[in-house]
């Protein structure tokens, strides 16, 4: 294998294996950016992985008052699941419990989409008959009376079946500190890319998993090949000098946006060079048989 080198860091010739997902995007506005962010962070909380959270969600980007439908500060949120029915349930529950409840909030569609998901069209029932529908410019909005005035919520938002989940980068380094710093930089760079999220805490996951386990009923377990404390006992992928590995998982509305995010992330990791303590950049896959989307790092680098 002819591994590539950037600034002394080895970019392993491998690929990230990603899966098709269904995704949606909504825009949350509030009187201040602080409250738009509170609503968005609450709505996208506990949404790191579909394995147990039901959805993967995160903040796409912050919108200026000029970019939102009601001229207030806004936040665009992305939500992904494995099928449309689950996405509808997650969207209703999350917007209903976390946005509707947040002071001064409003919620709008953030995606045209091939199909529509109900947004205000189901949340309107909270209005108990006092809700009002308003059509502005061909789009329907619901005004739902709440204790601080009205919750304005667009009737529907778009759904895309072309979303991609599980784009990833694995960062190997000689110290925990160095790997964390490099990954933070990568998450920062990826946050600039539109249409993608990094759903894990702070965008970084330290407990990468493999499929299956020795225990019955445990569908995923620790990725032992990348655990530095197990180097001597398992078929390790790590050189002796590697002390920590962290992964950045990327979900996006399109294959292209995920590739773009991986490109930005990879270069942000490599920015400090090998002297910072980063040794390898690689990616996670299952041999290529499970997911239809393969992001080859040597193509991503370019």
């Amino acid at each position, binding site marked *: 294998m002819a591994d590539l080198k950037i600034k002394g860091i080895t970019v392993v010739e491998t690929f990230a294996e990603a899966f098709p997902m269904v995704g949606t995007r909504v825009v949350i506005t509030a009187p201040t950016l602080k409250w738009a962010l509170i609503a968005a962070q609450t709505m996208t909380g506990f949404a790191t992985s579909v394995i147990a959270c039901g959805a993967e969600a995160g903040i796409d980007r912050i919108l200026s008052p000029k970019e939102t439908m*009601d*001229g207030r500060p806004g936040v665009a949120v992305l939500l992904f699941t494995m099928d449309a029915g689950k996405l509808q349930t997650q969207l209703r529950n999350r917007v209903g419990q976390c946005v509707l409840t947040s002071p001064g909030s409003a919620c709008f569609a953030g995606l045209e989409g091939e199909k529509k998901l109900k947004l205000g069209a189901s949340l309107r029932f909270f209005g108990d008959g006092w809700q*009002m529908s308003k*059509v502005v410019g061909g789009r329907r*909005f619901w*005004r739902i009376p709440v204790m601080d*005035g009205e919750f*304005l919520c667009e009737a529907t938002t778009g759904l895309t079946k072309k979303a991609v989940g599980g784009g990833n980068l694995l960062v190997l380094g000689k110290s925990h500190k160095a790997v964390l710093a490099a990954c933070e930089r990568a998450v920062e760079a990826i946050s600039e890319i539109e249409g993608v999220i990094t759903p894990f805490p702070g965008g970084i996951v330290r407990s990468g998993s493999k499929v299956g386990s020795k225990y019955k009923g445990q569908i995923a377990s620790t990725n032992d090949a990348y655990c530095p404390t197990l180097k001597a006992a398992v078929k390790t992928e790590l050189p002796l000098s590697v002390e920590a590995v962290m992964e950045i998982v990327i979900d996006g509305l399109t294959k292209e946006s995920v590739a773009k995010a991986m490109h930005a992330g990879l270069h942000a990791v490599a920015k400090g060079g090998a002297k910072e303590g980063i040794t390898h950049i690689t990616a996670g896959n299952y041999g290529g048989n499970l997911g239809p989307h393969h992001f080859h790092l040597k193509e991503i680098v370019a």
Partner: protein
Amino acid sequence: MSALTFQLKNAPEERLDLSPLTPDRLSGLKAKDIEALSIGTTRVPATVGDVFKVKGKDASKVVFVGTDARCDKIGAGMAEGAIVVDGNAGAYLGAGMKKGRIEVKGSAGVLAGASMAGGVLDISRHAGERAGGINVGETLGMRGGVLTIGGNAGPLLGERMRRGLLIVSGDAGDYAGARMVAGTILFKRGVGANAGFGLRRGSLIFAKEPKTILPTFGDCGVLEFDYFRLLERWLRANSKPVKLGARARRLMGDMSVLGKGEMLILA
């Protein structure tokens, strides 16, 4: 291609039914066929060729020049394209229209935009009674689209309106928004007596407080509405700028009927 233009030769001797002269109905017709279309409403036959000088070819944009208050049913039931009226329009202007755009540089007669379902109808000057109201044979008024009246509007504006947006820049007559089922009327100036009589649902937005308010409307006080921000931005983006702000006094009514409608008086 230049717009298909109908120039009125002389003031018509009778009321004219111009409903055949919409872009969708004219497309594909030859000049000769167009001139042969019957538009008379009395026993004296009248064809397009008798009344209008016809120029141009592009039927997707129809222009009327020099029309007067006897030119009825301009753009009635139209489903696509654009009509420009360089003059006045008679009754039933854009009544039952579904799509497309009508622009009138003068005034319109009764029942302008009556029971219209979609599209945009812009009247630069005044509109007669029952604009956006119930077309003959219908049970509901406007059920979609945008109707703007640059001047004054007659009585029973938007009667039994179901959906859509109506904007009056001048004064509106009595019983504006009467028996409305839903939809929005924006009054930039004054309004006559009994506005919102029998209002079931829907919003009457007043830039100025009406002189009299029906006693069957209940006050909710001055409140903030994010809906206004949304509407104001859309209006500005569609070159109909109106300063709404975000605060308004909300009155709910008409409590003598369903009472889920509202008057929003800008504060």
